[in-house]
């Protein structure tokens, strides 16, 4: 523990000093436009999509300017109508034309001529280049030591669509997109609270990906926020292409099979988590948002749970938790019971199982492995294939291979049922990452069952439980509220309690403001009306 802190501290120190050094060496803009152009051309000139456009201001030979942008990432209409036209022509028709000089060109252009909402100034080449590569447009003026950076970003992007991986029946249909700004706007539209903060960081040495940290100040625990920031700060890598990169770089335990963060495409899920006191990490270029800290039970919640009435949704949520056991243990139990403990089966079931297995050439374990691998192959093939074909593969695989395997005597019909139930149960999992872990763990249990029977399965369950209770996600026990035991959080763990009773945020997150509803008011509200 101490070592880790020390290490981190040292790294931080190193970074700071390195930053200072950079500042000293960082190249600054020169006064002469030609010199600046030469520098930029040397840096980026051989790129087809980089444009330099030189022009004269107000029709005067002595006043020169240059536009510098990446073609395809800007809004050309703004560039032409709000920047180029005023600078080149319209300025001539005003009184400003008389005042224009080399020395005040930048000042006047910023204040009076360029009519674009977001304009910044910079004197550093690094900042300039980074902005332009991010989609901004730079305007350089001859004789100015600074450049204007105009934000007129615009590129082709996907619109807000229904999330593919987490569909609901009742609930909003909008999902995150690949554009970070769109995603933050989806969140902001749902939380009109000044305390809702979106902090920006850039991660990735070469990709310089925009990463945003969203949380609600006054609800989320400060320690957690600081921890997330500190961990993001330690990332030192070339490339961040997806939020998964960040997840894997900052998670608590890299050698665990279970995901320690929640991934979602849904803004409503994210907002729900933010209001519980969690922190969201939004990454540019991906619709998947990370939510930390995550608990195991939370991965089995769906936003729809809260949209429908609590009694029915409690039942469905309970069903989802049952599905964990079905998805992980059914084939293993089948192997153990038929190969080791036939005495534990009811006699009639035993008779029919034995009869269906008669003539099957493989032991139950091999049979189970063959069928499970087949179904995993089908799943993987279905994902890779284009939509309509993917569905066909599922039907063809399920029906034809299952039926054919039974007829050919390779598998028993009961095994087909077992595999089918297992597959269905693993589809119930709302979180894709956790369903991946469960799919894999199933094979471990099957091996244990084949070697040691039910005893092996019990050992496996114990091992997984021991692992789960030691696991932590940003300081929060992964298995809470189960262990550590927090009865108050149980009303939103395995069941979904009535909303009017959920007066507190989850205790496990140690939120700064634990109250979600005013308990006093809640109790009096109806009583007063009744008296009328």
């Amino acid at each position, binding site marked *: 523990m101490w070592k880790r802190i020390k290490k981190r501290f040292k790294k931080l120190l190193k970074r700071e000093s390195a930053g200072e050094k950079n500042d000293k060496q960082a190249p600054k803009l020169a006064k002469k436009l030609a010199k600046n152009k030469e520098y930029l051309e040397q840096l980026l000139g051989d790129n087809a999509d980089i444009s330099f456009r030189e022009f004269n201001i107000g029709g005067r030979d002595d006043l020169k300017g240059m536009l510098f942008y990446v073609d395809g990432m800007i809004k050309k209409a703004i560039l032409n109508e709000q920047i180029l036209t005023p600078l080149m022509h319209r300025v001539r028709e005003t009184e400003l034309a008389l005042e224009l000089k080399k020395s005040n060109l930048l000042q006047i252009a910023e204040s009076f001529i360029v009519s674009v909402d977001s304009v910044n100034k910079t004197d550093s080449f690094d900042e300039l280049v980074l902005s332009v590569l991010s989609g901004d447009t730079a305007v350089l003026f001859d004789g100015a030591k600074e450049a204007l950076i105009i934000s007129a970003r615009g590129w082709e992007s996907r619109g807000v669509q229904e999330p593919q991986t987490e569909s609901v029946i009742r609930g909003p249909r909008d999902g995150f997109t690949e554009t970070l700004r769109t995603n933050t706007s989806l969140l902001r539209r749902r939380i009109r609270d000044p305390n809702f903060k979106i902090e920006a960081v850039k991660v990735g040495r070469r990709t310089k990906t925009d990463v945003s940290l969203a949380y609600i100040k006054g609800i989320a625990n400060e320690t957690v926020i600081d921890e997330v920031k500190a961990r993001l700060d330690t990332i030192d890598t070339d490339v961040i292409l997806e939020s998964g990169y960040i997840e894997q770089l900052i998670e608590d335990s890299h050698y665990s099979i279970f995901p320690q963060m929640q991934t979602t495409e849904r803004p409503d899920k994210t907002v729900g988590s933010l209001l519980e006191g969690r922190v969201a990490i939004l990454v540019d270029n991906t619709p998947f948002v990370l939510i930390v800290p995550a608990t195991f039970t939370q991965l089995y919640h769906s936003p729809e749970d809260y949209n429908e009435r609590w009694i029915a949704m409690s039942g469905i949520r309970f069903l989802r938790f049952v599905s964990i056991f079905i998805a992980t243990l059914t084939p293993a139990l089948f192997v153990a019971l038929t190969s080791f403990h036939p005495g534990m089966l009811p006699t009639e079931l035993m008779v029919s199982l034995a009869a269906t297995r*008669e003539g099957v050439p493989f032991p139950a374990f091999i049979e189970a492995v063959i069928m499970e691998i087949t179904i995993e192959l089908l799943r993987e093939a279905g994902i890779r294939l284009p939509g309509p074909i993917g569905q066909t593969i599922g039907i063809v695989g399920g029906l034809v291979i299952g039926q054919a395997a039974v007829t050919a005597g390779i598998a028993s019909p009961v095994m087909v049922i077992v595999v089918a139930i297992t597959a269905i149960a693993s589809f119930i999992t709302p979180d894709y990452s956790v369903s991946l872990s469960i799919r894999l763990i199933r094979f471990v249990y099957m091996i244990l069952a084949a070697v040691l029977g039910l005893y092996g399965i019990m050992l496996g369950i114990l091992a997984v439980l021991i692992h789960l209770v030691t696991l932590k996600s940003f300081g929060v026990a992964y298995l809470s509220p189960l262990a550590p035991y927090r009865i108050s959080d149980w009303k939103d763990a395995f069941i979904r309690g009535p909303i009017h009773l959920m007066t507190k945020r989850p205790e496990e997150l140690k939120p700064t403001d634990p109250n979600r509803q005013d308990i006093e008011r809640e109790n009096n509200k109806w009583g007063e009306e009744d008296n009328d």
Partner: protein
Amino acid sequence: MQRLFKLALVGLIIIIITGIVSGCWDRIEIDKRLFVFGIAIDEPKSVQKKIEELEKRMKKELKQKGNEEPTLSEVEAKLAELEDPSFEEIIERTERRSKGQVRLTIEAPIVRNLAGSDGGSGGGEPSWSPATIASSPFEALRQLTTRINRRVYLGHLKAIIFHEKLARRGIQGLLDFFERDNEVQRRVKIFVSKKSAKHILIRKIPVEQVTSTYLTGILKNKIETSRLADIDIGQLMINMHTNAGSLVPRVRDGGTDLKVAGSAVFRGDKMVGWLGEVETRAALWVRGDVQGGDVVVQDPEEPGKETTYEIRNAQTMIKSRVKAGKLIFEVQIGTEGNIAEVGSDTNAMNDKYIKAIEENVEEHIEGRARDVIKKAQQEFQTDFFGFGEQLRRHQPQYWKKVKESWHQEFADAQVIIKAEVNIRRIGLVK
């Protein structure tokens, strides 16, 4: 980190080694096992009996040929004519076999034919009954594996049938293996058969494919008649080890069916006698194990006609006390029920009539109970009612004194029977 790796590595090695070293020696696929549903334990035939049997057969054959009264010499001549196997061979083989103590027959379902699906639907025998002779059940089961290509599995054993002769000699030694073995469940039912237990087991019943399932199914019907007292191996073992008395159901071959009714009385592990069906129910009245059934009594209005009382529930309270050195048990039997059949043309909506029937039923129950207790005390000197248990619970000091010679003490005890019948319903007819 390195330490973690090392730990993980050690764990992995342990898992792999346990896997390899232990192998999967307990793993036998379900289709490679032979499930035993029933076991019949008989005494092997003695030479004497075999000769008698052969003589009978020869007499029959001679009779068929027209010789009405064959003489002994004629029969012997016929016996000597036997070829392949010859008479000597048969006797020799029987002699060899009779050295064993048990003839053990197992009933194993042929699952392929039983399940009905997957090809072998319909046709084919539903079960198979190989048998062997050995000196103990365990040896017999091991010997059987020389005749069976699968692993014998007792986890689904449902019934063990003993021949009366073995039961009278004591079944402690015969049941010991079933008590020790980890596969055998404690709820295996025990039966006693007057004649060959093997014949009970191999009797084919059309409605149920496996005879053992048929037998245990009949036991479940005891709530309809209370004419039998079922007992499982666990309870019988407890009774055996405490030298208590037990009632074990009697099974009889009815030609086309099997009848389970009445019981064999055990003192400790030895059978001491039989109880009939009605006696068994009377014993159950005293024990408080009656769950249902019928009581047929004289119709109070029209003597000669009969009226039937249907038992809906019953309970028994036993009180014990010692008075002047004499042990007295008070048995109070209470039951509620309906009038099921009225033999006479009487209107049953009549308080007096119902009262009269109640009295008749009370008398009937008390009389039968007295009879069976008398039989238990005088004929068997065995307490199979649980009086001893009652005493142990309520008068532990006294119990400690008498427990060694309890069955003797019981024979001298005084038992007072009192029945109380309440008729609650008389049916729909006016």
